[in-house]
């Protein structure tokens, strides 16, 4: 198992290098630089700005300089926000987004997992259709709609919850978590239902049943582990996706998270911030995909032996 993790960590180094390199040149190729503005910037000013940030150097030299700084953990100064370093912006935004993502995932697993498992026990009956339909609301109603609707109902008409903010007013984390989580609930419900159905028809479940175990024990002790494999494969990218995809929810609820910084950076052509956030995100994606692969391996009895049986 440790060997497997070690290999994957080694593999991730070139992954991150490629991401850095491609992104570095990609952002510089995109039309409109960081300093273009609605009122034309006179050439002297533009040249001075570029000189301050080293953009006047040959591109390859800029690239090497960036890698050098990166090796020291320095992601450079933000172009859009003078006086702020990219490290500082990520440090400000990431904890917020991670917390939001975690709550959202709990909501998603709570709603989606329960609905999926319950539905899979009596397929094509009311016990299937009702929980699945509830779980699907989240995907029919995208965040950009779910947010305002929840705010209108719970924030404005009922006046139960704050309409925006994060950690400012008690209860202001509830609606964003539900909004972001509900999209993923549908995926998890669908995937866990399908996974469970797949597993429930397999021999070892029949064996377990034949032994006379009560149904709930069959489900919990035998079926869940195998039935959740597709969910777990989905969770890795989903959590990484939550982090970059929380932009809409963060904007609607005025949450100072990384998602807003990341998308704004792309709109602003804030080269260093795009790169910094991309590198950071790449590391997270690698880590979460690795975690979900390990988890999937651990859950799959046949694969477990392949990785050395540990866990």
């Amino acid at each position: 198992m440790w060997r497997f993790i070690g290999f994957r960590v080694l593999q991730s180094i070139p992954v991150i290098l490629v991401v850095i390199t491609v992104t570095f040149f990609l952002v510089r190729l995109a039309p409109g630089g960081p300093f273009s503005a609605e009122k034309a910037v006179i050439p002297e000013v533009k040249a001075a700005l570029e000189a301050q940030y080293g953009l006047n150097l040959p591109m390859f030299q800029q690239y090497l300089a960036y890698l050098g700084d990166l090796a020291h953990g320095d992601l450079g100064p933000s172009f859009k926000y003078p006086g702020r370093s990219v490290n500082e912006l990520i440090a400000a935004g990431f904890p917020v987004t991670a917390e939001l993502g975690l709550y959202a995932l709990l909501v998603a697993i709570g709603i989606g997992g329960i609905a999926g498992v319950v539905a899979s026990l009596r397929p094509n009956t009311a016990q299937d259709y009702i929980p699945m339909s509830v779980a699907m609301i989240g995907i029919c109603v995208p965040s950009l709609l779910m947010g305002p609707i929840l705010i209108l109902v719970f924030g404005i008409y009922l006046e139960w919850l704050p309409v925006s903010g994060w950690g400012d007013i008690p209860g202001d984390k509830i609606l964003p978590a539900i909004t972001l989580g509900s999209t993923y609930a549908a995926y998890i419900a669908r995937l866990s239902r399908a996974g469970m159905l797949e597993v429930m028809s397999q021999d070892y479940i029949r064996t377990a049943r034949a032994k006379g175990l009560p149904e709930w024990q069959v489900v919990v002790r035998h079926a869940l582990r195998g039935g959740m494999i597709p969910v777990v494969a989905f969770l890795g990218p989903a959590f990484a996706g939550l982090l970059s995809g929380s932009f809409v929810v963060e904007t609607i609820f005025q949450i100072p998270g990384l998602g807003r910084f990341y998308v704004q950076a792309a709109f602003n052509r804030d080269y260093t911030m795009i790169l910094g956030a991309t590198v950071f995100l790449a590391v997270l994606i690698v880590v979460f995909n690795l975690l979900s692969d390990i988890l999937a391996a651990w859950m799959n009895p046949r694969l477990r032996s392949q990785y050395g049986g540990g866990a």
Partner: protein
Amino acid sequence: MRLCALRLSLPVLVVSIVVSGALSLTACGDRESNVVQGNRAGILHAGNGTEPQGLDPHVVTGVTESNIVTALFEGLVTKNPYTLEPEPGVAQRWDVSDDGLTITFHLNPAAKWSNGDPTTAQDFVWSWQRALNPAMGNQYAYMLYPVQNAEAYATGKLDDFSNVGVKALDDHTLQVRLNAPTPYFLQLMDHYSTYAVHRPTIEKFGKATDRFTPWTHAGNLVGNGPFTLKEWRLNRRIIVEKSDTYWDKDRVQLSGIEFYPAENISSEERMFRVGQLHYSYTVPLDKIPVYRAMEDSPYVNAPYLGTYFYLLNTTKPPLDDVRVRQALSLAVDRERLNNTVLHGTNVPAYGITPPGTLGYQPPRVFDYDVEKARKLLAEAGYPDGAGWPGLELTYNTSESHLKIAVALQQMWKDALNIDVTLANQEWKVYLDSIDQMSFQMARRGWIGDYVDPNNFLDLFLCDGGNNNTGFCDPEYDDMILQQAPRAASREERYRIFNAAETRLMEQMPIIPIYTYTSNHLVHPSVKGKPSNLMDYVNYKYISLDPDWQAAQ
């Protein structure tokens, strides 16, 4: 069995989260809103668009930044928010020489920085050098160009700053020499790019011209305005509190302001509705009829110094033909557009200069006239749209630009039987298209930096950096650059401007659509925040009515 308990803990966790959430619901039901709390404590809660780019007066360029910078710093003069006339700022009074070329500012000896240092004339000389220094990359350096040799210094043609027309005669006397009489110069002294900054603070954190030092962060920033920076949390809020060292602190009635970067305008409107904000940065278009219909409506709408128009690329067919340009413009029913899609919020425009810009009225060269438009198009070789080569309208992605474009697209189709295709572009791509003139017709807006027709008319000089149309008329250039500044009187000057604008609108390199208005939601407890042409806020005038709640 132990394992089962462990696996079941997830649902248990979810249930406990739900329960704790439900408990916190009841807790916040009776919470006082920001507005009620703020009214009692004298704290203004203001919606402020996006996260400010920064707070360095020589770096920032936008309205959101300006709203905060003017609370933290003060220029030589300030403006009366009711009349926009200059009022004493750091300068107590000023004398203008008879030839209009020399202005002497007498600084208030009581003017201080927030660390207690006096604000001196030398501070201004040093700050203007910083603002103009080419290495600074100040995008608003041109605000100081009326000063003798300032432009030469800012573009690197002159190295010695002592040749620039600004001098400290003593600690409290600043003398400024101008290139030419500049009627709007005093207004510029209230623009943040001409503010003084605190030299020791800036030098503590780096070179004078470094853009990226943390000198503007909370705890570091030293300003000379009515408020000081208390807290700056990214994408969350900026809090300023009343300054003890400000020379006119007795007139400052607020004890603090909280600025919220409410990027999403629908979210901002909801924040206003539940009492989290005293006033909003803007109002979503679809909400305007609802608010307007209210009794004691918080909706405030006032003319704003800006014009919304379409740029026409006169270098490419079919728009290289003036008749086609005129036909397009004449076929736009501006009144109808404004009354329907725009909910009557704006003022239809027929020229580039907003009507009433310091008493100036733009000429009315044309009207909505479909018959004439059809005739012009036929003369240009496209009778009833026959043979029309197609035309693309470029705009940056935004719902309001889209709405206008869709309505006009159909107006052109109905009136002239021509097809116009729409192409929205992401902001920076759009800026690139404008700059490279790689468009046929493009949406554009221009907001004045100061109240003078010159600020709009000099856009279309042959080498104007914001011309972007290919329009070039030497006679027009002569009128704007030579004749108008030498005019003997304001009437004479406006007559020249009027003739120039008539020439411009006859050539029609742009299709004016409407004059902007400012749109805000303002809570009734906010006093002393009048509407004005520049949407200018002077925080000294604002007060909050603590009894507002009781009056309800």
